[in-house]
């Protein structure tokens, strides 16, 4: 999951998604919502199946991006992209926004 989030917001001279706290941001939602938890665990299995015989985390960045593009329109894909962007650019409940990464990155 961390590898997936870091393809949605990769590192440049600013932090990646997980470096900015997006994993914790999403896990907080998953812990409170069994249906969302199911969407994430099923989706992560699918993306590893698509990556087989390797696992998603073992692939290079370009191959990973191709797989993200394949799941983009699915329920899981659209949810994980939306929540990663939300965690990165918004919300004082994420570490990213406590440090105002959203404004620092864009300004």
């Amino acid at each position: 999951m961390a590898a997936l989030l870091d393809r949605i917001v990769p590192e440049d001279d600013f932090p990646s998604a997980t470096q900015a706290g997006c994993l914790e941001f999403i896990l907080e939602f998953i812990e409170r919502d069994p249906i969302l938890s199911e969407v994430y665990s099923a989706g992560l299995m699918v993306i590893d199946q698509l990556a087989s015989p390797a696992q998603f985390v073992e692939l290079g960045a370009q191959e990973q991006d191709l797989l993200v593009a394949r799941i983009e329109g699915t329920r899981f894909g659209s949810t994980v992209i939306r929540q990663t962007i939300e965690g990165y650019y918004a919300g004082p409940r994420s570490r990213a926004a406590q440090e105002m990464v959203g404004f620092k990155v864009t300004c």
Partner: protein
Amino acid sequence: MKEWDAIVVGSGAGGGGTAQTLAERGLSVLVLERGAWLDYSSSEHRDHLRNHRLSQYGHSTGPPLEGNDRVAVDLDGVPHLVKPHQGGYQNNASCVGSGTHVYGGQAWRFHPLDFKMASTYGKPEGSSLADWPISYEDLAPFYEQVEHLMGVSGGPPAPEMPTRRAYPMPPVAETKKGRLLKAGADRLGWGTQVVPLLINSQEWDGRPGCCHCQHCVGFACPVDAKNGTKNVVFSKWAGRPDLQLRTGAHATKLILEERRCKGVRFLERGIEQTAYGKMVFVAASAVESARLLLLSGVESWALGRNLQGHYYAGNSALFEDPIWDGVGPGASIATLKFNHGNVGVIGGGMLADDFIMMPIVMAKWSRPADVSGWGKAHKDWMRHAYPRFINVTGPVHEIPSPLARVELDPQVRDSNGLPVARLSGATHPETVRTTAFMQARGREWLEAAGAAKIWSGPPDLGLSGGQHQAGTCRMGDDPATSVVDRNGQVHGYENLYIADGSVHVTNGGFNPVLTIMALARRTATLAAL
């Protein structure tokens, strides 16, 4: 049994203004507010995902997300259960001050022709377009009173508007994007004016000037420089026996007998109570005021019809060089050139630069179709575009439809066991046409200001309401087509008044809050004579 001189339901722009006007005249007033007394720290601070601009996971005021459902019927006639933070709910803040606690505070007067839409343009078939029974001149003295009582900052009016007394405060800080747009308007020969704001540009009324933090619209003000009914009215009257504000007090029924309203039943922390008054003013916003009258058995064909808010004629634009200076409030310059006199469309609206945009809002609402929603390309775009971005937008004067309605849902009940509001219908298609016309004008403006890229989505037919909700208790001389008379008094009831945006015949091509305040002041002044 205590009998108040007046009971007011709601403490927002309309209810707060009514209470202020009556209390100034020495009347005893009870205000029933279903929400809580909130301040900056109890309004979710600056949570960019839970506020009144982006309510992804909740919002920064009441009502609570559970127990306050509504039913929104889509254009195919399918009903959907919606919670307060979800699309289709048409939410307005539920707390002391209501929308004035979290608004951007644009303090526009309506244009004189906004009161005469039907006689100016004719009534399109299927619409309920009508003239107001009162004119701009009737309201002008009350506009002036609230501008000075509530505290407005700004400069002289645009050339399209009548002259008026200067505001009590000069304009807030100018922004870089404001200067660019001013230069663009000058090139086109369009008149402009500073956006008038219910925000202190300097110390006023014992509170500080704006701290330029950019978070006006959707949020409470961290330094209390925004002027609303909570700080200007209720803070000042706190502790005085002649104006009592009860929070957590949810009005459930008006006690109607013959031609009078004797009082209001309400639930306060689950306990049913009754208050009696010589006069009763309902200002619970267009959805809830209509619902309360329906729950109370008021019969009127027009009750709950003509629900309207505003369509927004928005364009996003990128400039070559960075133009972001981080200076709030951000809404700084407007043109009123297209509020009226447009060829081929009905009405029009004001155009202005928007309040400063949160990065997440740009990511969600303003990403052009040719930019990926994730990955390096998305991050590169966010970093490049944000400091070069301007959003020009403005409220379009809606052409109302009698089919845009608030009714009581036959099945769904709230946590008090009362039928919830059922919202259905859509604006008249002419609204969509005028919006497309206004979008084209916004585009022209941005081009003249030097934008390198401009994009927008086409407007669709739908129902609007939200924080600008209006129209459901329309004002008029004919009881067959209106709910209140020209003085805000409900037809058939000699001491019952509506004092919020519900009475607007049409909702102007402007943010409506100053009109709600001025009209409430007029209604209360006439009722207290």
